[in-house]
């Protein structure tokens, strides 16, 4: 079974600085997807960025980028030029590309609470 681990329950960053959130996962599959979701106090789950395992190039979305290390099974999220609105819970998630595997369910890490100091 696949697992996702986020070892940092809380992180803090100064506004305008850079922070990296860690995520490791375990799987025997070769084809899968990885995601970072943001959950602000409103509870809404917002997709931040996604990475296809077959792609070697790291995904980027504006100030958000990932460091995907497939052999090490590591998938960290870097937030550059942090803003007050980035304060939220961040979840790392895994989805098998074999959708017949439990309907392509998302497997989540425990989350990292990010605070941004002005």
């Amino acid at each position, binding site marked *: 079974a696949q697992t996702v681990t986020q070892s940092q329950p809380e992180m803090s960053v100064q506004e305008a600085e850079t922070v990296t959130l860690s995520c490791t996962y375990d799987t025997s599959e070769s084809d899968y997807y990885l*995601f970072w979701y943001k959950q602000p106090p409103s509870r809404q*789950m917002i997709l931040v960025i996604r990475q296809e395992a077959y792609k070697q190039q790291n995904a980027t979305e504006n100030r958000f980028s990932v460091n995907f290390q497939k052999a090490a099974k590591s998938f960290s999220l870097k937030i550059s030029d942090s803003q007050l609105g980035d304060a939220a819970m961040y979840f790392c998630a895994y989805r098998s590309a074999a959708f017949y595997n439990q309907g392509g369910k998302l497997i989540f890490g*425990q989350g990292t609470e990010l605070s941004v100091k002005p």
Partner: protein
Amino acid sequence: NAGVTQTPKFRILKIGQSMTLQCTQDMNHNYMYWYRQDPGMGLKLIYYSVGAGITDKGEVPNGYNVSRSTTEDFPLRLELAAPSQTSVYFCASAARQGGVEAFFGQGTRLTVV
């Protein structure tokens, strides 16, 4: 463009009561899911469905039931509510092909007292 709509947003139940959490999506997605989120934990899968008429258990199905009579709707039924079911519940949907991300409803905060 509504996406995934969950109702209600908040609910307080007494022990032993029953209720249904409603979920509907307008994106014609085949896959739908119910997750629960407990404090300090990630989301755990309760039930999922790969299409109308097909449902299956996830990691934590005890105390819950689901049905999927249409592509759009995937209600979650709580029978005989217990304090252990106090949680935030999320419904989500995803396509079979094309985009691979899941889309989430706004969540339901349920308290059982």
